[in-house]
């Protein structure tokens, strides 16, 4: 899908059986407005709280660590490798606010705040409402269908988390440096997808020839010449 060599940052080759895909996500600018609120535990008399300010984190680290990477399934790929994940409700936030799971996995939502929370989603992949529940309770949801699930709280409009339900086990998140690895991918030609909440979905084709590892690099958001068709658009 590369029209010019310079634009193609695809490096390396694909290995045979069990070969890994090494990749880098390059993000040069801030994409997300970080929404922070005071922790619920602070609503006690006499405590001064400063609201509305971001914690001192590198915004690019935040962006890179919020990129989900997975292989799009062929029609015959079975959903394998279901896991148990957890999204905690702490300080009126979902922590973490992004999880990447294979289809069929279950996510737990424990409430650690001294106030009620509510967990619901209206997404196509999984629509649910866990209701209001107080501190100490845990409610769980299983996600059998691949897709994006946006999770919210009725009581706190600024609480949001995203669950990326991948079609198979080859799904991960980039780390703060944008590095990701998809392990033990059999030989074949795949469409590799990078997803960022604001930048959108980016697809690339990668061919694995065992035992050679393949390398893939994404630049988010896509910046190219005007006449070039973007690899992917949200």
């Amino acid at each position: 899908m590369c029209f010019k060599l310079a634009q193609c940052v695809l490096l390396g080759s694909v290995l045979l059986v069990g070969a890994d895909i090494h990749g880098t996500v390059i993000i040069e600018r801030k994409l997300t407005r970080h929404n922070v609120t005071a922790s619920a535990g602070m609503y006690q008399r006499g405590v001064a709280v400063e609201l509305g300010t971001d914690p001192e984190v590198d915004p690019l680290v935040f962006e890179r660590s919020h990129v989900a990477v997975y292989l799009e399934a062929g029609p015959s790929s079975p959903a394998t490798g279901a896991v148990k994940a957890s999204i905690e409700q702490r300080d009126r936030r979902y922590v973490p606010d992004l999880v990447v799971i294979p289809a069929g996995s279950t996510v737990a939502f424990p409430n650690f705040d001294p106030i009620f929370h509510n967990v619901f989603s209206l997404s196509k992949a999984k629509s649910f409402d866990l209701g209001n529940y107080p501190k100490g309770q845990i409610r769980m949801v299983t996600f059998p269908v691949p897709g994006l699930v946006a999770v919210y709280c009725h009581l706190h409009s600024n609480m949001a988390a995203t669950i990326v339900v991948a079609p198979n086990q080859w799904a991960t998140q980039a780390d703060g440096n944008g590095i990701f690895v998809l392990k033990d991918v059999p030989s074949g030609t795949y469409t590799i997808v990078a997803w960022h909440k604001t930048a959108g979905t980016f697809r690339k084709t990668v061919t694995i020839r065992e035992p050679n590892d393949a390398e893939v690099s994404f630049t988010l958001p896509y910046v190219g010449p005007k006449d070039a068709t973007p690899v992917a658009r949200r």
Partner: protein
Amino acid sequence: MRFATRTFLSSFIPFAVLLAVSFWAIRGSVIATVRDGLRASVRDNEVALAREQARNEGRDRKLLQGVAENPTLKAGLQLLATERSAKDQARNTVQDQLSEICDSLNFDFIMISGAHGEPLAAVVRYAGGFAPIKLDRLRAPEQGFFSADDRLYDVTSVPIHEAGAEVATLTVGGRFDISRFGVPAVLLHKGAVIEAQMRDLAPAQIEKALVACLPAADCEPRIQDQAYLSLPLGLNTGGGDDSYVLRSLQNVDAASAPLRAVLRKLFLVAGLIALAAMLGISALSSRSIAQPLADVAAYLRLSSATGELPEFPESKGGVQEIRDLTQGFNHAAKAVRESRERLTRAYVQFVGSLAQALDARDAYTAGHSRRVSDYSCAIAKAMNIPEQEMEIIRVGALLHDLGKIGISDLVLQKPGRLTPEETELIQQHPVIGKRILENVQGLEAYLGIVELHHENLDGTGYPYGLRGEETPLHARIVKVADAYDAMTSDRPYRRGRSHAEAIAVLRRVSGSETDPAVVEAFALLGDQRKPQVALTGDRSLHSLSQAVEDETGRSVPAAPETNELTVARGRENS
């Protein structure tokens, strides 16, 4: 009262009164204007404030209606309504939501009440953060002032609808800050001061002053003897006893004090300057009016003191009226002077005629008076006697023997020795002469000569036997001239002595009878006698008329050739 004082006062006092009244009026109107301006500005300010307030409220209300539709808040309410087990956490949840709303919309107070007004949750801004407050008896008004947790809030309420029904009420407010008004304000609740910006006034004073003010009307109370202006700020809410009243309370006197001080200073300075200028102008004008009159008055006083009627100096630049006055006076004085001179002259002529008639009684003494007069004048001239006194001497000498009118010709023309009685009679003539003249006004100056021309220096003369300087110089001069003429004239019984002989005789008796200085002055002059003319009756008559004419100063009519010398002499003497 002097004229100058009067003119000064009559010009100064009206001016001063006018000035004082106008300054007072101007000052009053300026202060009134200042106060009105201040009041207008306060009112404008308050109107603007009220408008701003109304606009803010409208905006707040719209915003609040948006907030009331907040689904999370509704969810929280539902949670609060439905949760049975963990009520505290449910309330915490809602309080948390309220805190967030408060924070994002910058309110200081937020409260949610149920459908029946029962308070469900309330949060206030507290030391930078938020804190829930106790809900006991919290009942917020729909709009207005609300005291919660010992603080005063300015609140607005909106209903929260759920499925078409009003399920709750959201009340939000800002902390009431009395200093946010542009004017000093005071907030009263049930007539008691809750908040006031005036730190210098005790709340009791404010309450007392404002008790008479109607809630919705302007009011001008006096506090501590200062005028205040109090206007309703249009934020009054509620009714009856439980009403809050927000009023401005501004010290008009203090606000206008700097301006008034400036005005006072200005008026004082201007007033003093104007007063001083007026004083000067009044003084000058009164002086310019009164001075010429004072000059005239001084001149008149002087002339009344001296008895003379001098002529006023002609003042070119003077006042027309004063000029007319002095000219009139000059004319009158001139007329009086002339008539007085004419009178005097007439007397002199009359008396001179008498003297001439006397002389003419005896051919031998004819011309005696005139000659004595001539000699006396010559001596006086030689002795540098002033012109005015010369005139006295001339006339006095003419009249010196007037007293002989009252003495019989038998005695006067008696040849031979006189008896002592006859001598005594003769010696009466100076006193008789004096008696004749002393009743005639204007001849006082000649009395001395007439009376005393027979006194001797050593006191042996008659009629009084005066010594030395007691006899006036005029009389002493005339005595010498008289004696000389007596000696040099022919008498029926002897011929006249020569000049030298006569001078020798005079010198011999000088010091005892005659004044040596006069004698010496006369001796130095030399022979003053004129050639003797024949003494005829006709000549004598002519001489008399000439004497009269000389005295009147009129020109002598053309005389015959033979009279040439007499005419010439008359001219010389005039």
